């Protein structure tokens, strides 16, 4: 990641502002709702009062409803589909199969990794609940009733669900339709210097190794996927309202799949009820709805049910990893190795930039200055749903961070070193930035020790270490464990030359228009799913133009009106579109100066802008000042002769580098030696995402992500039986944490600005989901490490923990420590 991007000079100029840019640590927002102010979220009024507008709220005259018939088998050849009984039903309009789609050349669609997936199964079902046929009816009940009447003859085949078994010679072939595919192997990938790393391992004082599975997870947004497709034969135009995190990219893909020219495709992503990466891919349901609308010339709605979402939506993780560290006897880490077996499901559909088949997994050197690193990965097809899509994790960063943070704990235990101390001995020093890692990534800025020290203080670390020892000494029923994770994230893709989605470079955009009456509309190419963009991006403009935050409206999600963007995922919105918003605002400010000069009857070079007051004034004469509101009026009513009227600017921002937010999390748990139950005693999260735009929104993001981290560590796993049946296909079996499972979080922050971002900000949305699972697992392991426990697999349900306790000889007999007092005169019984 070290090559120089070709950023135009003009953008570099705006990127580094004349006054050094905002510094929220020094002055916060100036009372206008700019940087650093806890502005109440603009979007919450409509959400809290039930006036949000989600895809399922969209209703159109004559709208039909689509229900998808799904395969009960994981691996089966379709012999025959008979839709006649469904078609004979009163309210059923049509039954669609692959045959119908083939007529319109819509039978397949590209995945985000350029694989080809059946929209409706043409020949062979490759995972359970794969889309086989679609019933279009006048209402959704009739569609569901009709789907039950579609008869499908299957020739059931042996499935393979486990990645290791899939690579065995006699494994069933998942992708027999591909000419060059003779086994289930998809690709091998490696990074780093194998030879140099082996050498370091050969000569090291100590090496440790640990196997760990980052289990398959479900992104579980509260809103499932859905679409309302509306083909207008009069306009030759396809409008699709859909649950999309990346409406423009989806427009391009829709156009490519359908052959409808891109200017005749409009994608609208209205309010979106959570995404977490689930809504980055294209799903067959969207295409079926669009195809049905095209064929029937009526609007068609498809809304996925919860179980359909869990069973088929782009999953996350499923990385089976072996980590190794080489170190000196003082705990200085010299080398890291990792080998991964990745289960990609039935199609290669991971959401990775095309140059990085394993995403950004090479961040596995973490926050540490490690001389040698080597990583290798093999990906396999299985008869499971496709995915590998980010779940609040930027492109496999979550897996990488889990690996390194777990391994550091394993090494600390091997050397009997305090896990905080061993981290200190290995952190990349704060004066070493920008820092190039052994896998070739350029870290922009960091101060890891500062964040760790703050977290240790907040967590009352020494007290809990003493308490931990006391309980061990007294053979108490509940053990204390303290887990640390000092993670480094990499977020904010591009640069476009290195990062793309389906070939489109990962820039992003902002279009800022100031109205004659002094308020403004900012249109952005990213799409909020709960991140608070309508507030945060308005704050950026407020900061950069001296406007009040309430006078700025942020629009997003409609490809007919918004500038092209790559969407919201991988914590990229603030690093990329946020930068575009700042640059667009600075361009407007530049033009505003010439209007100010005209209004104030001064030379343009004498006009200064004051960030504190938000006003423009004549140099040396602060009284001769003008606000952006007055300037806006001038731009439309009294524009200078040598300037165009109006006051607006567009910026397409291609980031020069990614940003590297980081943090230290400390988790204290109590482990019940009788039952294996784990309770959280303390949960401290110190984050550093550079300059902070809206601390309240950041804190909300942290809280939500930590809750998801707890779900990952304690509860969640998508499981399959040997027949390829999803055994956790509903929320009774796929367990999400509720408020009851979430402890009190204590959040803190440090601020290490990104040197290349226009306002010094980094992404933050995913840090807590990335950083917390290893802290939690480290804590549970730490409670038992005195008895030699080095790892516990996620999810750490009570039975899993109890079995670990039992094997380590730590499980307590019930009533181990009980005495009974029988009251008057009776002798206390002894156990």
């Amino acid at each position, binding site marked *: 990641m070290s090559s120089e991007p070709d950023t135009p000079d003009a953008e570099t100029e705006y990127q580094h502002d004349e006054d050094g840019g905002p510094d929220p640590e020094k002055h916060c927002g100036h009372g206008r709702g700019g940087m650093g102010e806890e502005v109440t979220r603009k979007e919450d009024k409509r959400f809290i009062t039930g006036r949000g507008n989600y895809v399922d709220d969209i209703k159109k005259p004559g709208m039909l409803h689509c229900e998808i018939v799904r395969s009960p088998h994981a691996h089966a050849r379709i012999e025959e589909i008979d839709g006649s009984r469904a078609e004979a039903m009163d309210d059923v309009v049509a039954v669609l199969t692959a045959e119908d789609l083939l007529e319109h050349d819509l039978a397949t669609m590209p995945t985000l990794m350029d694989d080809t997936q059946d929209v409706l199964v043409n020949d062979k079902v490759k995972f359970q609940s794969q889309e086989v046929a679609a019933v279009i009816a006048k209402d*959704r*009940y009739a569609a*569901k*009733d009709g789907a*039950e009447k579609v008869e499908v003859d299957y020739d059931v085949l042996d499935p393979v669900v486990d990645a290791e078994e899939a690579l065995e010679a006699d494994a069933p072939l998942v992708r027999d339709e591909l000419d060059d595919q003779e086994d289930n192997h998809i690709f091998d990938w490696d990074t780093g210097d194998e030879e140099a790393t082996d050498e370091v391992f050969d000569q090291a004082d100590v090496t440790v190794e640990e196997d760990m599975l980052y289990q398959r997870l479900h992104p579980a947004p509260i809103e499932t996927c859905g679409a309302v497709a509306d083909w207008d034969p009069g306009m030759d135009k396809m409008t699709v309202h859909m649950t999309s995190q990346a409406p423009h990219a989806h427009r391009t893909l829709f156009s490519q799949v359908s052959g409808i020219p891109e200017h005749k495709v409009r994608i609208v992503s209205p309010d979106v009820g959570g995404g977490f990466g689930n809504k980055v891919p294209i799903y067959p349901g969207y295409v079926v709805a669009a195809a049905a609308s095209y064929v029937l010339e009526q609007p068609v709605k498809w809304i996925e*049910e919860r*179980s359909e979402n869990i069973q088929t939506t782009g999953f996350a993780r499923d990385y089976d990893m072996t980590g190794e560290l080489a170190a000196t006897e003082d705990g200085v880490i010299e080398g890291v190795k990792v080998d991964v077996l990745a289960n990609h499901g039935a199609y290669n559909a991971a959401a990775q930039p095309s140059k990085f088949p394993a995403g950004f997994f090479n961040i596995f050197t973490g926050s540490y200055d490690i001389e040698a690193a080597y990583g290798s990965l093999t990906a396999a097809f299985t008869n499971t749903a496709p995915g590998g899509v980010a779940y609040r994790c930027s492109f496999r960063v979550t897996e990488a961070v889990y690996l390194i943070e777990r391994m550091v704990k394993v090494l600390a235990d091997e050397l009997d070193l305090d896990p905080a101390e061993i981290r200190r001995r290995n952190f990349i020093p704060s004066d070493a930035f920008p820092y190039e890692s052994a896998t070739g990534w350029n870290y922009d800025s960091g101060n890891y020790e500062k964040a760790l020290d703050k977290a240790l203080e907040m967590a009352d670390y020494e007290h809990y270490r003493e308490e931990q020892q006391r*309980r061990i000494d*007294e*053979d*108490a*029923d*509940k053990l204390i464990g303290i887990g640390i994770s000092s993670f480094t994230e990499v977020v904010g893709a591009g640069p476009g030359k290195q990062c793309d989605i389906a070939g489109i470079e990962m820039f992003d955009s902002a279009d800022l228009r100031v109205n004659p009456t002094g308020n403004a509309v900012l249109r952005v190419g990213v799409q909020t799913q709960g991140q608070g963009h309508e507030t945060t991006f308005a704050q950026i403009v407020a900061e950069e133009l001296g406007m009040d935050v309430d006078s700025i409206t942020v629009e997003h999600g409609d490809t007919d009106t918004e500038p092209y963007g790559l969407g919201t995922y991988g914590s990229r919105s603030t690093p990329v579109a946020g930068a575009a918003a700042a640059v667009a605002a600075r361009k407007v400010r530049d033009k505003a100066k010439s209007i100010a000069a005209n209004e104030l009857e001064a030379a343009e070079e004498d006009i200064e802008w004051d960030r504190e007051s938000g006003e423009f004034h004549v140099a040396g004469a602060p009284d001769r000042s003008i606000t952006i509101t007055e300037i806006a009026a001038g731009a439309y009513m009294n524009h200078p002769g040598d300037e165009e009227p109006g006051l607006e600017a567009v910026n397409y921002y291609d980031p020069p580098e990614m940003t590297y937010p980081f943090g230290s999390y400390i988790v204290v748990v*109590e482990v019940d030696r*009788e*039952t*294996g*139950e784990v309770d959280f005693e303390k949960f401290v999260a110190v984050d550093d995402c550079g300059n902070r735009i809206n601390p309240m929104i950041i804190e909300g993001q942290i809280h939500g992500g930590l809750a998801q981290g707890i779900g990952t560590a304690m*509860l969640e796993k998508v*499981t399959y039986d040997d027949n390829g049946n999803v*055994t*956790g296909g*509903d929320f*009774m*079996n796929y*367990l999400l*944490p*509720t408020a*009851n*499972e979430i402890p009190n979080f204590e959040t803190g922050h440090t601020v290490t600005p990104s040197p290349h971002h226009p306002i010094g900000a980094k992404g933050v949305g995913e840090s807590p989901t990335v950083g917390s699972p290893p802290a939690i697992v480290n804590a549970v392991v730490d409670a038992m490490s005195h008895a030699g426990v080095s790892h516990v697999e996620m999810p750490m*349900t*009570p*039975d899993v923990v*109890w*079995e670990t306790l039992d094997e380590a000889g730590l499980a307590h*007999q*019930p*009533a181990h*420590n*009980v*005495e*009974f*007092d*029988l*009251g008057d005169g*009776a002798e206390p*019984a*002894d*156990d």
Partner: protein
Amino acid sequence: MKSAPFEHHEPETVDEAVSLLESLDDPTILAGGQSLVPMLRFRLANPDVVVDINGIDSLDYLREEDGSLRLGALARHADVEDSDLIDEKYGSFADAAPLVADPQIRNRGTVVGSVAQADPKGDWGSILLAHEGEVIATGPDGDRAVPADEFFLLPYDTTLGEQELITEIRVPEPGPNEGSAYHKLKRKTGDYAMAGVGVRLVFDDDGVIESAGIGMTAVDITNARATDAEEHLEGERPSPDLFATAGELAAEQSNPESDEHGGADYKERMVDVLTQRALGDAAERAGTVTVERRVTQ
């Protein structure tokens, strides 16, 4: 919810309900909908006819009468959770109510409906067994009282007749030397039990256990009694050893299966743990002993 179409009847009296059960073809009774509604939603249940008893106001009660606690068919889990009477006198009910499902479901789901559903992972069946309670089944021939021991047959299968509905469950009012408790282990709020144990202990005036009832959740094909443990306890004074052996006996008598909630061995072990914990609480509530955990933390 996109259930298959069904016919919906709303009787306002028990008599009306019974005559509907008599006249309709294979009707399904809807009370709180805690189990039926998800089954309709998944189309695992596709009844042609549903008899919705929520309009029968006379079944909405929780009271003591003639020496027993009585819960009508419309008493919700939340009614038990919020009841002062339960808090004062019925420790096992007070323990169990807040552990059932989640608050939304407790507002709607009924205790009787849960017993009628006869899911071995349901909590109330174990409590009914531990208290040696009764199920009142009302049909064309009037009421009959079925002892809890004779009610559960198989998962989701009971001795309730096709034309009967459960109008009430009852358990004996506790005497002065009696205590009860329920302990449940689950992975999260709203999850079914990994294992659960309900206990009722009756002591004589000398502190000897006169009668013991133990019901187990999620560790057999129905809610099941731990009779070996009960026998071991009766006639003895409480002690950690006594309860430890009772725990082991209950675990031995349990018959759990490995599933997503945990392995069979683990569940057996947890029956032991939960039995001992529940016995300790029940004995304390009876005022017989004070249980002291030497090192609690």
